[in-house]
């Protein structure tokens, strides 16, 4: 367990933000931490959607249960937090 800095690029928001996470956090937990700084502050919640993490430049989200330590992130690397219709679940998790 160790603190790990990432950069959050949250879909619909306007700015990159510093996102301290833990190496043991899952990608789902990372999205919750990122949403705390964007949703309800400058981004409206989207009912019927979940949030996913993907690396910048990638179109595929990372597995929801993958841990930060397993993702191969560099410290402060920019990750994209994107909305995904809940109905898509099971197709890309």
């Amino acid at each position, binding site marked *: 367990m160790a603190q790990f*800095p990432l*950069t959050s*690029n949250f*879909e*619909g*928001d*306007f*700015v*990159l*933000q*510093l*996102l*301290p996470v833990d190496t043991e956090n899952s990608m789902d937990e990372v999205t919750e931490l990122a949403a*705390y*700084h964007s949703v*309800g*502050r*400058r*981004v*409206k919640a989207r009912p019927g959607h979940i949030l996913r993490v993907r690396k*910048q430049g990638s179109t595929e989200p990372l597995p929801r249960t993958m841990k930060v330590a397993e993702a191969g992130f*560099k*410290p*402060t*690397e*920019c990750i994209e937090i994107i909305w995904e219709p809940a109905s898509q679940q099971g197709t890309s998790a």
Partner: protein
Amino acid sequence: MALLNRMDWYDIARTTNWTPKYVKESELYPDEMCGSMGIPMEKWEVYDEPYKQTYPEYVKVQREKDAGAYSVKAALERSRIFENADPGWLSVMKAHYGAIARGEYGAASAEARMMRFSKAPGMRNMATLGCMDEIRHSQMQLYFPHEYVSKDRQFDWAHKAYDTNEWAMIASRHFFDDMMLTRDAISVSIMLTFAFETGFTNMQFLGLAADAAEAGDFTFSSLISSIQTDESRHAQIGGPVLQILIDNGKKAEAQRQIDISFWRAWKLFSVLTGPIMDYYTPLEHRKQSFKEFMEEWIVAQFERSINDLGLDKPWYWDQFLHDLNIQHHGMHLGVWFWRPTVWWNPAAGVTPAERDWLEQKYPGWNDTWGQCWDVIIDNLVEGNLAKTYPETLPVVCNMCNLPINFTPGKGWAVKDYPLEYKGRLYHFGSEPDRWCFEQEPERYAGHLSLVDRFLAGQIQPPNLAGALAYMGLAPGEIGDDAHGYSWIEIYKQMRMKKAS
């Protein structure tokens, strides 16, 4: 005794390139200070300054300018502009003075370097006058806000800002140190006078003078108009330098310096002038949008200057024109949202009428930045002020040191431009920002952005209170909404009307 006309003696009087006997030319003009790119002395002697002025003429004109600006100030001291002006206008003054006044002293140092180390005699003459200009600008822009310090501590930042680690000042210092304080005389003439002053000071001083007059602040208007008359003279130092560089096969290097400086200036003005023109200046006093001012005073003028010299537009020109619609909206939203971290009180500028104006000037505004502001407005209407404050830091660009931001909402296009250099991951807000870094990585690599400093443990305790202390923002100085959130009343009324 009859005096000779200026042009009967000017050329011979400023022909001062004597042949040194006791030192070598390379000692008199060390290349790291001179930056003559191997072009021999005699080639520099063809420098022909487009604006010729002698010292007696300079003193006479400057005395009249000073008398004019100070007289207006004295005459209008009882006009109670501080008490009567819109709070958004006071924020314009606070932001301007803090960001500019002490930087003018830095510019005096840069002019002094050209005065001493340029191999072109005419350039040395112009820079001598330019150096005195900049000292005058700093003195005036410290003196004029001083009368407000006893009324509002934020005006103290006219002097204090440059000595702090406040984030906007880190950005400002990074740019001005790069352009003015760490470059040789020739580079200064290109990067400061040609790329920056020719275009961007027009923006800040002419554009703002028009807005000031509209807002009824004739003291500020006459002050910055007075300054601009100097700028428009000494900004011409760089033009003939560029001609000499082009004539001697150094076009590529000249172009590179212009491209770096122009982009860097643009980014700084997107946070300093953009919000002022499109959000802080009261709607009824706005002359043109920021984009319209940029297109008229910078794009057209700069393109003409470049074409006249036979140079190319910067390689990122199309992107720059595109970003005129975008970048400053995000800078404004960021400043407002992180408002405790600035020394002025940002005006939100998003009442329904102002949003209509923004939509008209920037089609699509409501579907993009408007979407972020919708959430903020909902929170304010519902009394949820805590949600309108940040709880983390924005990631800032390792070149411009400003928050990395771009279009939100339906047009979401925010992106990081990373670069790994010697094992460190750098972040940039755009391709041109990253390109600037890549031109001379060692010049910039050691600098720590505010976020880098936070992660290095330099900001303690690592929270908002620690950050404010690190930035030197004392109680009574930290920023808040310029109008004390009174503008939200119209939204409350709209909601009540809708509910009934």
